């Protein structure tokens, strides 16, 4: 009597799966019959490895449980194979199979998590290198990344909230936070934004970054991303929220402030005086990268009386015989450099050196010798480019690069007045930005004295009263609409 029911149920499940995945030629449905009991093992080719010893143990256990006539017989048997759980709905069956796990179907269906992991091993950090500090980087596997964070924060308050996002990709996403430290409104905000979004595919964490970004149009990044586990761990301790996305080593961190982008994790692994000096240097480099070509244009076109006479004579001598106006000269060199940089990033490393030779020799030296650009311009573009590489974060560097061109145009139209105007607008713009409700310039605006221990400078770790925590929460939307 019972036997009948078993087979009917089993066949119903199998039929359902076959119907859903009829087109998949990599679907494996492997019936194994022992003592008249047929158990179906369903998985995708090459994702699950079934060893005969394991199967023996499985069937012995299944028969034993059968005799005891317990409800959970199959689950108990499956636990011999690996971590298992019951699956109730057809959707779950599909999920199990598509997630590279094993579905065991008998009188019911059980998911066994023994799927093989196809990700690479933990590698070295590629984007935010440090001289001193941990070298390992996140990988593409959300499981491995989770483990790396757990290793760093052996804290019972470390919480992982799992989401599956992307109607087409079904990507695993984990929202990580330290309960108690993290502000509840931040967490709710992040979860709400992630859950409400109808997003078809999540192939990289940037797909979610757009969901977390502020609604204002801006070139500035308002979500931090890194492949360094130590940075994420530090962020969690400060009460921030990390979002790990399966398939990318770049983990997101919110809320993030402007200053996060000019801070490096290495600042905390060095003596504080050295780290502070280097931070100041980065702030300086921010302004150099943003303004140097613009100021040069403004001074040479509008405010020649400001340049010391000897320098002016030297600049004038260099410009003798240059056929282009200064603006065109700057744009020519800047765009050439951007082309070189972009080519350098995309090219396979074997060809990369060729680009640098062409860039340095042909464009740098030959352009000057041919009298197309002046020496001073090459210096200006070089110092700008070098300053741009100082930022530990690629995201801010690229925003600054874009803004540089805006400032060049302003300078060529209005001189120093234009630059000042641009800076006023820039500051105005920065103050309107927020990262999930925290003002982008927190520490400066709104002013926070305690934050200053870790903003421009880095105080000694033992002198800091407490870790920097995000204290102010603003409902920026409310502020904006209220005006």
């Amino acid at each position, binding site marked *: 009597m019972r036997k009948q029911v078993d087979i009917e149920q089993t066949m119903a499940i199998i039929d359902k799966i076959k119907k859903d995945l009829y087109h998949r030629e990599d679907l494996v449905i492997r019936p194994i019959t022992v003592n008249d009991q047929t158990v179906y093992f369903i998985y995708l080719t090459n994702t699950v490895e079934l060893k005969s010893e394991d199967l023996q143990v499985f069937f012995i256990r299944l028969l034993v449980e059968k005799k005891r006539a317990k409800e959970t017989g199959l689950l108990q048997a499956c636990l011999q194979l690996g971590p298992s759980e019951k699956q109730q709905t057809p959707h779950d069956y599909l999920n199990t199979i598509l997630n590279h796990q094993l579905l065991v179907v008998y009188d019911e269906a059980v998911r066994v998590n023994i799927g093989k992991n196809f990700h690479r091993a933990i590698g070295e950090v590629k984007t935010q290198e440090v001289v001193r500090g941990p070298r390992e980087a996140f990988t593409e596997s959300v499981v491995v990344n989770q483990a790396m964070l757990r290793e760093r924060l052996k804290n019972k308050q470390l919480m992982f909230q799992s989401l599956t996002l992307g109607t087409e990709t079904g990507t695993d996403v984990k929202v990580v936070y330290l309960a108690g430290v993290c502000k509840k409104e931040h967490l709710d905000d992040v979860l709400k934004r992630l859950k409400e979004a109808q997003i078809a595919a999540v192939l990289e964490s940037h797909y979610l970054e757009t969901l977390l970004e502020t609604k204002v149009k801006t070139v500035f990044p308002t979500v931090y991303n890194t492949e360094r586990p130590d940075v994420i761990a530090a962020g969690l301790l400060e009460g921030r929220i990390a979002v790990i996305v399966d398939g990318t080593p770049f983990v997101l961190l919110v809320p993030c402030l402007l200053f996060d982008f000019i801070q490096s994790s290495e600042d905390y692994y060095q003596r504080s005086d050295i780290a502070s000096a280097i931070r100041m240097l980065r702030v300086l480099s921010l302004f150099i990268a943003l303004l140097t070509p613009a100021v040069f244009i403004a001074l040479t076109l*509008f405010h020649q009386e400001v340049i010391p*006479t000897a320098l002016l004579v030297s600049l004038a001598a260099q410009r003798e015989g240059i056929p282009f106006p*200064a603006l065109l000269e700057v744009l020519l060199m800047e765009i050439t450099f951007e082309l070189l940089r972009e080519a350098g990033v995309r090219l396979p490393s074997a060809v990369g050196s060729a680009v640098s030779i062409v860039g340095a020799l042909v464009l740098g030296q030959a352009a000057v010798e041919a009298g197309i650009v002046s020496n001073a311009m090459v210096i200006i573009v070089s110092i700008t480019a070098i300053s741009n590489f100082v930022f530990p974060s690629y995201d801010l560097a690229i925003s600054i690069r874009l803004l540089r061109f805006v400032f060049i145009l302003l300078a060529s139209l209005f001189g120093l007045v234009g630059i000042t105007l641009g800076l006023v607008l820039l500051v105005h713009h920065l103050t309107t930005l927020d990262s999930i409700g925290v003002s982008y310039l927190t520490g400066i605006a709104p002013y926070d004295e305690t934050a200053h221990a870790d903003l421009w400078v880095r105080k000694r770790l033992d002198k800091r009263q407490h870790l920097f925590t995000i204290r102010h929460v603003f409902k920026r939307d409310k502020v904006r609409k209220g005006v």
Partner: protein
Amino acid sequence: MKKVCIKLVLLILLLPLLTSCYSQTELNDMMIATAIGVDKSTTGYEVTLQVLNPSEVAGTSGKTTQPGISCYSESGETFFHAIRRLTHVTPRKIFLGHIRFVLFSEGVSQDGIIEPLDFLMRDHEMRSDFALLVSKDISAKKVLEVLSPIEQIPANKIINGLSASEDFYGPSLEVELEEFYQHYLSGGIEPVMNGITVLGNSESGKEMTSLEQTTPKAVLKVKYIALFKKDMFIGWLNETESLGFNYLINEIDNTVIVVMTETGAYTFEVTKAETKIELVKPPASFNVVTTLNVTLGEAPTGFVKGKEGINQLTSLVEAKVGDYMSSCVDRLQEEQTDNVGFGQVVNRKAPSVWKVVEEEWETLFPTITVDYQVDVEMTHNGQLSDDESEDEG
């Protein structure tokens, strides 16, 4: 978005309110002038510009044997007119933002220079930190045409030489436009300028061959102070009077003083000099208090005998400095022009008296009495050991 647009438009509308240089000029579209010379011409003014030839001064390639500067002259009814008429002869737009000095010939300055000065004050392109000079016994044009060795820009040579002479010897004074104008406008003080001249043959000084020998055929020489009454040149001070003038207006930084004794000439280096003009009895009695720190720089005997010897020498220095200043004041009284600013002292110390005498200060000035009190302190005698002086003493 609309709001942002409005804000942007508002900000751009604010731009015209800002006073600033508006029009843009490429560096290779302009000619950098380093000095302006002003002479009299039949129609009005003849203006000479000394402009730079950048690639000769600073270029790395394409250097020829051309001089680092060129000069262009043109005349006009007014100074400004002449400057604009210069565009007839200049190859590019003239940029006056970097001029080091404006040079007036004696002829022009005797007639008054307020018209050119007015243009120089008004023009927006100028930095007002350039010096004003008078050329002595030669036209301004000829001075500007002279080439100088080492320093390729003769204007720089003049200004550097002037400040060196002012800082280390004393009878010269770099007067900038604003200072001159202030003294011109305010009562109780008359302006001065420094003089400059050419030694040698100024005609051959124009040629590059002049520089191809160890002694150039013409040398630019910084002269002494030129006295002005209002905007009109009235005469030259000589070297001692100029030194006295600079002592009086407290502009001496470092100089030397030679005093004669029976044993020979002693030379002192003044390392610090401070002068205060005190009003003893308004409006016509003054006391000039000068304190000097000196060191012995050169002595004929090789050493100085004891404390008394030093005191004897310092009193000679005191007398000499007093002479410098009195000779200057005597000269000014003779010319009836108060370039030191005794009138301003009256104005500052006794404003009520000044109101009464202000109108007739010009006639009152020649009658004022000035007493000189000079305190000299010798800080070092420059001797390596004091053994010998002890023995002799």
